[in-house]
């Protein structure tokens, strides 16, 4: 349910912030009736009252000292997506029907339960540590090595994503400079640190031997890496250019940070 929350609230967050910034209180208290009817829109005198207002739009200032480099990497990622990732994704979707892709999705999500567990613990979220552990146990057994997700379907234990970036944020570490990572996309110093820690952490635990095998520089290793990446791209609905806006970089940067703040607060 938390996921659905976020899907709805991210656009709302953006909308609210822009509105906040684009206007300033220039009016004395007036009629506070609800906008239940539109008769006033039909009244030509109405517009006499309405005038433009200016104020600061500081919320758009995400700390981004490496902006020129970030923008170049962003442009590279867009091309990489267009010429490598998306064609590969088409092939992936052509070969594997939705049912099979859902099994892959559940499988990788189950592997990803490991960082959820230890990061919940690091944040002293005991209930969440327990529920994520239960999910791992149920899905790895009843769900046949995680290929299915009975924890959600039958036991109604929702997935709760926690990574080390969130753990750092939970204990008060700030986002630091915004970063665009090659291929991985938008991040910041705190969450990039988190990515590295979780990479090491997952490899140490090496649940089902997947992360160790994945890091091997052989055919199997690269195949696993490829599947992992394609699965993630399959889930991710974002497409470069989908906003059709000249301010895509600014919007993505803002929304990324907002999303991380929401994840940390939750």
């Amino acid at each position: 349910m938390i996921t659905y929350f976020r899907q709805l609230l991210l656009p709302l967050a953006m909308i609210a912030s822009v509105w906040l910034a684009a206007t300033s209180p220039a009016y004395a208290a007036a009629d506070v009736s609800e906008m239940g009817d539109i008769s006033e829109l039909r009244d030509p005198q109405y517009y006499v009252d309405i005038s433009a207002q200016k104020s600061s739009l500081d919320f758009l200032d995400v700390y981004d000292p490496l902006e020129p480099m970030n923008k170049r990497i962003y442009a590279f990622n867009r091309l990489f997506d267009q010429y490598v990732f998306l064609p590969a994704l088409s092939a992936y979707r052509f070969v594997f029907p939705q049912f099979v892709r859902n099994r892959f999705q559940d499988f990788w999500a189950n592997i990803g339960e490991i960082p959820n567990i230890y990061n919940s613990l690091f944040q002293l979220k005991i209930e969440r540590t327990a529920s994520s552990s239960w999910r791992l146990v149920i899905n790895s057994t009843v769900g046949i090595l995680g290929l299915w997700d009975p924890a959600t379907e039958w036991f109604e234990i929702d997935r709760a994503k926690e990574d080390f970036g969130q753990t750092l944020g939970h204990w008060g570490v700030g986002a630091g400079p915004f970063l665009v990572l090659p291929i991985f996309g938008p991040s910041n110093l705190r969450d990039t640190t988190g990515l590295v820690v979780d990479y090491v952490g997952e490899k140490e635990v090496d649940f089902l031997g997947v992360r160790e095998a994945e890091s091997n520089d052989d055919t199997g290793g690269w195949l696993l890496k490829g599947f992992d990446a394609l699965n993630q791209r399959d889930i991710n609905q974002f497409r470069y250019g989908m906003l059709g806006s000249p301010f895509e970089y600014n919007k993505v940067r803002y929304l990324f940070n907002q999303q991380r703040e929401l994840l940390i607060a939750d």
Partner: protein
Amino acid sequence: MSYPHTLIATLLVALLGWTTSASAYDYPIKNPYEATVLGTPPADKYQWEEPRKVKKKVLTVNLEKDLSDITLAGAYGLADMKLLYAKQKGPAPLIFVIAGTGAAYNSPKVTFLLDTFYQAGYHVITISSPTKPPFMAAASSTHMPGLTNYDAEDLYKVMTVALDKVKDDIEITKKYVTGYSLGGIDSAFVGYLDTQRKEINFDKVLMINPPVNLYTSVSNLDSLIPAYRKRHPDATGEKLFADVFERLGRYFNESGGGVKFGPETLFEIQKSDQALPMDDVAVLIGVSFLFSSADLAFTSDALNHTGWIIPADEHYSPVSSQSTYWYKRSLRWRFLDYFEKMVIPWWQERHPGDTKEDIIQKVSLFAIEDYLRNNTSVGVMTNQDDIILGPGDIEYLQSTLGNRAKIYPSGGHCGNMDYKDNVAYMLDFFNN
């Protein structure tokens, strides 16, 4: 003995039949702002008896525009003129769908219309609004969207090129054009242009919730944020956001936590104790319009080098660190600022002597009044409470289009487009 009973029963049935047939447009949301934001509850949507899977693909058309000067075009993939295309196997009518302000060829409302007409057995091609930056870069001759007469020329070009591209692929029996909101008035101007050029020869044109006077529509939308401020002088965006979040949280808690977020959820929330106040709903429309206006004003400025947003001695570059500064400047532009500062001077350079009033007349429906009045193939479907209409607009549509003007009592701006009665009306309009 039983005779009077039969008579009474017959009378009753007749009466009942009469009341149901004459009644009752039952679109459930009566507040126009709420209707505009929420649309139609899933249960009240038009249902197809045997829905088919809609196969649509992206159709890229090349308008052979010289984009070398336009670094903006290459910057975020704005150079591609993309359309959505769905075709039938056999001979069928072809319908073009034009998106509303700031909406793309694949936005939800456009996709809904594509699905609807595809289910009805038509070939469908959808086009982004001329106000959408990719259209402005790749297909606009003016880079000054909102001037419906010029926009119609650009749209017409896109349509003829697209037709040329698909003509060997499909068999076309008739040609239609439709659009909602700004796309509605666009479709009428395209239909009018077609009566002069005669290259496509549209058989029917349907405007859905179009503006009548563009200036009025834009003023209405621009005014929603200031109107909110006026009612809630101490409100802030943060408070609004926190309030929305809290209400949702309470709603889910009160529902026992077992609720999944689905297509019905927003409607359920609005029926519950945690419903968002109408003012909050209305301001969301205003803010979403502000976003579109900012993108539009900036793109127009970048392409026309007006110097209003990007200083005249600077050039747009996707890696420039100035973008945040430019974005802030753009967000301070209401649509009317764009009209006053960029559009009017541009127009007056080409049509010396025209006043602001003249321009408004020439880009609004009044400019093609004779065409609308005399051409029985043109229709309009809109709502009494459409928030983009002003005083006298409904009456104007009725007096100009007569019985080809279908006015529903409620639905706000495009909120009832997918309501069962409305879809039935649209299909009936084109099929008969």
